[in-house]
């Protein structure tokens, strides 16, 4: 069983990760909130990433379709030109955004659990996510991120525990995370 405060902690980490990886400078976050399950997947495809610990496995799903709006958004995140983006480059841009989002959660979990590991991203057809129930998650939450009032992004967080989970997570100060800086040895 996952305690309520642990579920809140997971959601906080995930929403922080979304802000860090899916919002570029100049974007206005109109809405970032949990939403009920959707009947049909909102897009054609999804990027899936996993974090493994001794006590749980966590899945992050970022939904996308190859549309002009999505191309502009993901190209902008990596400072590329949407018009010059090949299909493979677009897929790589989405995978990298997912990698950054899941990586942020992975770092936060690393502060709570001694040993965690993260997978590389994989792309699946979003119809697969109908079957997330087989993972028997103790916490399954869908999110919508709305940028500038017109660019909705959909994500899912899925945590399957093997033992009871309970922790209290508070968002760290942004400057304490040292993101983007070179740490010399």
């Amino acid at each position, binding site marked *: 069983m996952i305690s309520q405060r642990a579920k809140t902690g997971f959601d906080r980490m995930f929403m922080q990760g979304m802000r860090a990886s899916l919002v570029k400078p100049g974007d206005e976050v109109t809405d970032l909130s949990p939403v009920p399950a959707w009947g049909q997947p909102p897009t054609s495809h999804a990027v*899936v990433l996993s974090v*493994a610990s001794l006590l749980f496995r966590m*899945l992050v799903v970022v939904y996308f379709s190859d549309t002009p709006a999505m191309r502009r958004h993901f190209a902008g995140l990596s400072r590329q030109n949407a018009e010059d983006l090949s299909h493979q480059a677009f897929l790589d841009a989405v995978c990298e955004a997912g990698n950054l989002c899941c990586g942020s959660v992975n770092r936060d979990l690393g502060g709570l659990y001694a040993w*965690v*590991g*993260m997978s590389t991203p*994989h792309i699946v057809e979003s119809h697969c996510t109908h079957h997330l129930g*087989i993972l028997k998650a103790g916490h399954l939450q869908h999110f919508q991120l709305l940028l500038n009032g017109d660019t909705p992004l959909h994500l899912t967080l899925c945590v399957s525990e093997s033992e009871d989970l309970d922790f209290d997570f508070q968002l760290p100060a942004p400057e304490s995370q040292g993101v983007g800086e070179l740490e010399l040895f």
Partner: protein
Amino acid sequence: MTTPLMLTLLMGAIVLSLLLGWRARRLHATLQTMVPRQVMEDSQQRAQARIHDLQDQIEALEQRLHDAQRQWDARQQALIGEQQLRLTHSQAQASQSQTQIASQCGTLERSITELRNVGKTYERWHASMDFLLGHNRAMHNKNDEFASIVRQLVIVALNASIEAARAGTMGRGFAVVADEMRSLSVRAEKLAQDFRSSLYENDLITTTTFQDMQAGGKMIVGAVTGLELQNRKILSLVDGQQAVQEPCA
């Protein structure tokens, strides 16, 4: 005799008598304070005897001190000897333990190095994963083709029913066959949809299982790296201890 001379003689006599009187008074005072000789001699003898006694006591005490010092020195030497024996024994034991620890650390280091090669397993899994996903995609494609054929079959069965109806009584037998075909096509279409759903489920299971193995493997490598670092710290502590002990040995 002239008067000045007589006066001088008289003055001299007066001064002399005064001096003598003063001397006599001084002598009398001195005599008052003098101890009789015999008493003095007795006191002196007693003092000498006392001094001899005290000297004898001092000698006796010096002898005792000397003896005690000798005993103390002997005792101290014995203790030092015991301590040195114990220290040598402990050092030998410590040295033996350190050698054993160093040997165990070496074995652990080799095991950890071998375990780190688990990374090669990921490469094998990754290749298998790619193959499995490719296999799944092929099954999707085949299913899509099957579904397409089934849709065609439904249309053909419908057309057959229409033609059978046009043929009137002559086409009654054909109509039955056409109906049967349509019923089978509908079942096949449902099967294709179910199979498609199973393939999506299969894709999710394959992807999440592989990712769990990949992430889990990294978690294990992280734990193993932590063990390796601890092992190195222990080894360096042991080496440091041995370096300190060797000059003393």
